[in-house]
């Protein structure tokens, strides 16, 4: 080819731009404005449109602007490379930058490391240096990055719903403050985040306006737990549960491993589930709950009991413990608690109490944090009696001053005493308890200022709505649950002009400082630093946190009188026969409704119900029979005047006289994702009945409502011994020496040895990737699913497509209910993460007609999207059904118009959503099969790094052991998933795969999986009445885990 000077013609201004129209419909002013602020040196000169995902990546060093393809340039479209004019510090095009930050939550800050590519955060990981989470995170932290880019976030200051600006707002703010010199008539309502800067500013504000009112409201917060601790140990005391110290844990209506715990509890519990042999000191978990929760799933003994009977249970338990310990005081307290019914299994309580007492000092009783204060206080008293204080429970000083409650604030409002109300975060109009009548009360205030990240129900009723900055956009700080001070660094400038609550408070307090200064000043205060503390600050920023010595545990004694009084004052909860209690459960996804517009969370199946895009009335099979309903039938719940129609979802293991509904759904003022999703049950919740409401009647309506449940079938069908292998501690001890005990269960116990006619082509890379999943510590929380979604650019498909069975999650957490006799009332629950097993003999490969999926030498089943023509044959031939097909163009089309004729409907994704995409993973188009790749982009980056490091040194390039991991393994709060190089003897996976508990799924198919599951161990108390049922999920049918173990132990010698 000869060289040809190619003169691209001038691009016409109105030229048709059809080459890759990814974002061109989204040439919104916001986006342009954002780019202007983010890249003041250059990028604003580029047209904001046509920024493709990888194009964006090149922004820093080489921004790309695509131009329309005109006829004269039919050879190839003109694309520009647009570098900065001046180099930007730290910026290397194509390389990720990591910043330590923190996600503020009501349980304290979640220390994070944020991955950013060219100025846009794409992925969130836990801070590996921080002792609380050690690099792990949870579902909400993983999803928060999508919230940042939500194109429907609040963007403008609104005055009475009309677009306004900060200048007018500030003017009005001055007006409000001018009227009240001492703060009378000024009130603040804040959410439950524990931020040192906010506390500091609060004091400043209250110093300036001493008569101002400060109230806190967190719908799913632990205020009752705090209150119980205050009763038991005095004001300002908070209880810290040390699950890592507990041999025996009893939870009563407390989902401590799920939504009612925090990452510290989960990690503490999981630490005691990491077992290397039958002699390991594994904890034992007793769970009393009304519905299956993640905690119940992990239990060794579970008692299903209506939430309103928890008090009765604790009363019985306390009485037993008192009997054993001879603690007269506890006996009195137990007797003092008023309960109506006594339907408690005596034997269960007796043996449970005996076990707790036998492990005195190493036992922990946890009551539900929304149970009445009296019940919680009684539980604390039991703990004290069990010698838990200072061992399994610790006390710490509260980091926040006491505040008024929302009810008290509403009272003030109704009196007309409040002129200016500042609501910082939260959405009380939607989620305040019904008896507070908040919307009505709020309307009494002269001016209501609402600061929030989205325009919600409260904004609609406020005079001023101010957009809040996302936590990734501005300087914040938090206390982590261990009391350490964690700094939240911004990783991107506010996309939509949001400000922080601190900025607003500072303004009110008359402090003019930017958010960084506000935080730095707090830091100086917290660390008591004087003089030049920039070195400490720099280190704190780098590490992300500052260990705070003042957070040490404190000591206190049980306040006998207060507890007696609280218990005596508490009314009895009654649940009449034939009536139901309605239990308000915290949703594992949308929380109190705040995440309703987050598509990842809406589509994430609930870990227990597997329900997406909805909430439902959970009830037991027996209750469903009684009402004559099945899953999907709409029932009417009524309590006096209040009525509610909601679809039923039959959940095995639910208490029969109880109906549970998750709060946080049925939002009305919300973006398009969360609109008309689920039913709002907050109108049933009152300040008194925070947890449950008794005397609810339920009726079948005869209507049906389609529920999008990702797992249609929850029974194991006698395959437990094949799929989810389990053994009790006793069975394991009996087979401690039998290497094949867990390997020869189910069909593998009698299938002949595998052999092949062929020799496997060599997998001769120096690396070999593998994964181990410890079912004994996996709690099934589904954080891995969200992490995978964030890492691998997995689209959401919408409710309709989930109903059609087309969800795209590369990995799922299978949840089974199983029991030996098929007893749906008392089943065991097992969770099992399921991802591509990366079979060495992958059945999916040979059936692909175009070689789109083949094997790599390092043992991965790789998938070349661009080669795939989409026959779906591979998915059919996958025994684990982990392949996912793009039935529609989810990345190009809104989930609401998938069925509109392609040629006439809109294409494209909002730019901001594209900005979240991981630039190292292809965004797949429709008609393409995809699946878990073991995060091959991370594998490749690691291998490339090793090769670059080796360069010309002659050293064999080799990725160091455990130097990186997959997204699911990285996020896993219990570290149940371990990924690594099986060829490297130093790696954790190389050891784990040799574990006695290790087995591979469907071994008899000779697929040679690269994922090893470590069998679950149940640790039942042999004296308990239900001990014999432990591990029943892997019994039944052909495969009796235990008995086959014995058979194979005899065969073991021959093998």
């Amino acid at each position: 080819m000869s060289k040809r000077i190619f003169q691209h013609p001038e691009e016409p201004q109105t030229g048709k731009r059809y080459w890759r129209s990814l974002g061109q419909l989204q040439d919104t002013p916001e986006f342009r404005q954002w780019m202007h602020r983010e890249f003041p040196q250059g990028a604003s000169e580029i047209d904001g449109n046509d920024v493709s995902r990888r194009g964006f990546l090149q922004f820093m060093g080489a921004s790309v602007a695509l131009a329309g393809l005109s006829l004269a340039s039919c050879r190839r479209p003109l694309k520009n490379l647009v570098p900065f004019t001046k180099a930007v510090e730290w910026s290397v095009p194509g390389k990720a930058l990591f910043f330590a930050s923190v996600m503020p939550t009501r349980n304290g800050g979640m220390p994070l490391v944020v991955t950013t590519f060219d100025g846009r955060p794409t992925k969130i990981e836990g801070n590996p240096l921080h002792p609380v989470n050690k690099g792990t995170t949870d579902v909400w932290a993983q999803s928060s990055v999508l919230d940042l880019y939500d194109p429907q976030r609040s963007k403008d200051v609104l005055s009475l719903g009309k677009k306004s600006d900060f200048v007018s707002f500030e003017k009005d703010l001055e007006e409000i403050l001018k009227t009240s010199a001492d703060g009378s008539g000024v009130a603040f309502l804040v959410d439950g985040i524990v931020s040192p800067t906010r506390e500091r500013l609060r004091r400043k504000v209250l110093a300036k306006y001493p008569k101002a009112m400060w109230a806190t409201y967190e719908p799913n917060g632990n205020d009752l737990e705090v209150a119980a601790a205050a009763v038991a140990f005095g004001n300002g005391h908070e209880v810290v549960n040390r699950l890592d110290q507990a041999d025996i844990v009893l939870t009563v209506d407390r989902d401590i491993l799920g939504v009612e715990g925090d990452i510290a509890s989960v990690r503490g519990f999981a630490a005691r589930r990491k077992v290397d042999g039958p002699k390991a000191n594994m904890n034992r978990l007793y769970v009393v709950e009304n519905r299956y929760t993640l905690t119940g799933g992990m239990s060794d003994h579970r008692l299903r009991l209506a939430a309103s009977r928890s008090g009765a249970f604790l009363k019985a338990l306390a009485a037993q413990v008192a009997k054993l310990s001879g603690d007269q005081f506890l006996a009195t307290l137990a007797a003092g608690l008023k309960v109506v019914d006594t339907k408690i299994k005596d034997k269960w309580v007796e043996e449970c109490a005996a076990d707790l007492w036998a492990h005195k000092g190493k036992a922990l009783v946890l009551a539900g944090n929304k149970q009445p204060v009296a019940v919680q206080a009684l539980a604390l008293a039991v703990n004290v009696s069990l010698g838990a204080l200072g061992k399994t429970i610790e006390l710490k000083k509260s980091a926040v001053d006491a505040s008024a409650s929302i009810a008290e604030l509403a009272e003030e409002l109704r009196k007309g005493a409040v002129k200016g109300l500042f609501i910082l975060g939260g959405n009380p109009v939607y989620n305040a308890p019904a008896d507070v009548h908040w919307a009505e009360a709020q309307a009494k205030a002269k001016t209501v200022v609402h600061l929030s990240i989205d325009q919600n129900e409260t904004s609609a009723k406020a005079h001023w709505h101010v957009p809040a900055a996302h936590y990734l956009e501005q300087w914040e700080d938090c206390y982590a649950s261990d009391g350490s001070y964690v700094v939240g660094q911004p990783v991107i400038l506010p996309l939509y002009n949001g400000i922080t609550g601190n900025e607003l408070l500072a303004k009110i307090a008359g402090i003019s400082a930017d958010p960084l200064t506000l935080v730095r000043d707090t830091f100086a205060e917290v660390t008591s630093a004087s003089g030049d503390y920039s070195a400490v600050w720099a280190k704190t920023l780098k590490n992300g946190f500052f260990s705070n010595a003042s957070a040490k545990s404190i000591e206190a004694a049980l306040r006998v009188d207060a507890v007696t009084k609280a218990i005596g004052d508490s009314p009895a909860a009654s649940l009449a026969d034939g009536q139901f209690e309605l239990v308000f459960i915290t949703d594992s996804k949308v929380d109190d409704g705040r995440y309703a517009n987050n598509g990842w969370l809406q589509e994430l199946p609930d870990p227990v119900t597997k329900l997406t895009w909805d909430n439902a009335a959970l009830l037991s099979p027996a209750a469903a029979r009684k009402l004559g309903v099945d899953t999907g039938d709409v029932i009417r719940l009524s309590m006096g005047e209040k009525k509610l129609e909601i679809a039923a979802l039959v959940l095995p293991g639910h208490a029969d006289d109880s109906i549970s509904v998750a709060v946080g759904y049925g939002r009305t003022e919300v973006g398009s994702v969360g609109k008309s999703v689920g039913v709002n049950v907050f109108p049933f919740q009152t300040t008194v009945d925070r947890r449950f409401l008794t005397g609810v009647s339920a009726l079948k309506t005869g209507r049906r409502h389609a529920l999008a449940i990702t797992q249609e079938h929850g029974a194991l069908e006698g395959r437990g011994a094949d799929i989810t292998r389990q053994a009790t501690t006793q069975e394991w001890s009996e087979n401690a020496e039998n290497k094949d005990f867990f390997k020869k269960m189910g069909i593998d116990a009698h299938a002949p040895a595998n052999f092949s006619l062929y020799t496997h082509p060599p997998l001769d890379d120096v690396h070999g990737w593998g994964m181990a999943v410890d079912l004994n510590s996996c709690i099934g929380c589904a954080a891995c699913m969200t992490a995978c979604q964030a890492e691998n650019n997995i689209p959401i498909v919408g409710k309709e497509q989930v109903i059609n069975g087309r969800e795209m999650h590369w990995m799922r957490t299978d949840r089974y209910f199983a029991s030996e006799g098929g007893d749906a009332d008392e089943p065991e629950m097992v969770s099992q993460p399921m991802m591509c097993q990366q079979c060495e003999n992958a059945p999916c490969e040979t059936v692909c007609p175009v070689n789109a999926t083949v094997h790599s030498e390092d043992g991965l089943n790789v998938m070349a999207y661009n080669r795939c023509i989409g026959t779906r044959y591979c998915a059919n031939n996958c025994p684990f059904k982990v392949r996912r097909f793009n039935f529609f163009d989810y990345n190009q089309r809104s989930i609401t118009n998938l069925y509109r004729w392609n040629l006439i409907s809109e294409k494209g994704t909002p730019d901001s959503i594209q900005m979240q995409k991981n630039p190292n993973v292809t965004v797949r188009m429709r008609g393409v099969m995809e699946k878990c790749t073991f995060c091959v982009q991370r594998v490749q980056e690691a291998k490339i790094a090793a090769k670059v490091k080796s360069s010309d040194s002659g050293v064999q390039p080799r990725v160091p052991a455990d130097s990186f991991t997959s997204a699911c393994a990285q996020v896993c709060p219990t570290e149940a998933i371990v990924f690594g190089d099986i060829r490297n003897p130093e790696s954790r996976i190389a050891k784990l795969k040799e574990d006695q508990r290790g087995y591979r799924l469907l071994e008899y198919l000779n697929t040679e999986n690269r994922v090893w599951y470590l069998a679950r161990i149940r640790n039942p108390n042999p004296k308990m009445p239900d001990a014999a049922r432990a591990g029943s999920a892997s019994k039944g049918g052909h495969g009796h885990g235990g008995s086959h173990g014995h058979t194979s132990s005899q065969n073991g010698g021959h093998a």
Partner: protein
Amino acid sequence: MANIFPRWSNWLPFKIIFCLLILGGGVSAGVWYYLNPEYMRVGYQPSQPVPFSHKIHAGQLGMDCRYCHSFVETSAYSNIPTTQVCMNCHSQIQRENPKLQPVHDSWKSGKPIEWVQIHKTPEHVYFHHSVHVNRGVSCVSCHGKVNEMDEVYHAESHSMAWCLTCHRNPSEFLRPVSEVTNLDWKPSEGKTQREIGAALVNEWHVNPPVKNCAGCHR
């Protein structure tokens, strides 16, 4: 009854078949030749906003590639230099040259220079510069003799088959890492490229992905 068809019609089917064969062959050959990256990409030489000559800078002046493309050894991307880099020299040298006007304008206004992209990796291909240049793959292997180009053009086809020629046979292309940016490098006397390459492959444990699709497609 008479013949339906005239005598000449006897040859007609063969003529038609012959024509179709010629046409089909021509179309196939045309597709083969023209719809091929060898034709589609090679030789693409758009005119740039600044008539920057690699021939002068990299050739005559002997500047190292990495002076401007500074992150090529660390990043997947070989960056385009910022205006600042140009100005490092051109604030002193050739200040009055009218060809440099866009650079000065950019520097003054802060507006970047919009270079026209020549080498474009498809969205589903993940090419990593640093792993190549650190393992003895020279710039010249993919970009041609840029040091002899007044205006840069697409020198190689960058098709997957083209990539594979090296991935399958790296010894045909490797050179000492120190010579990667030396576009005029020739194997030293008495040695062939293949000998040098084979020795390097062996010594450095070079093992580029060939069967591993995920090496380039993630």
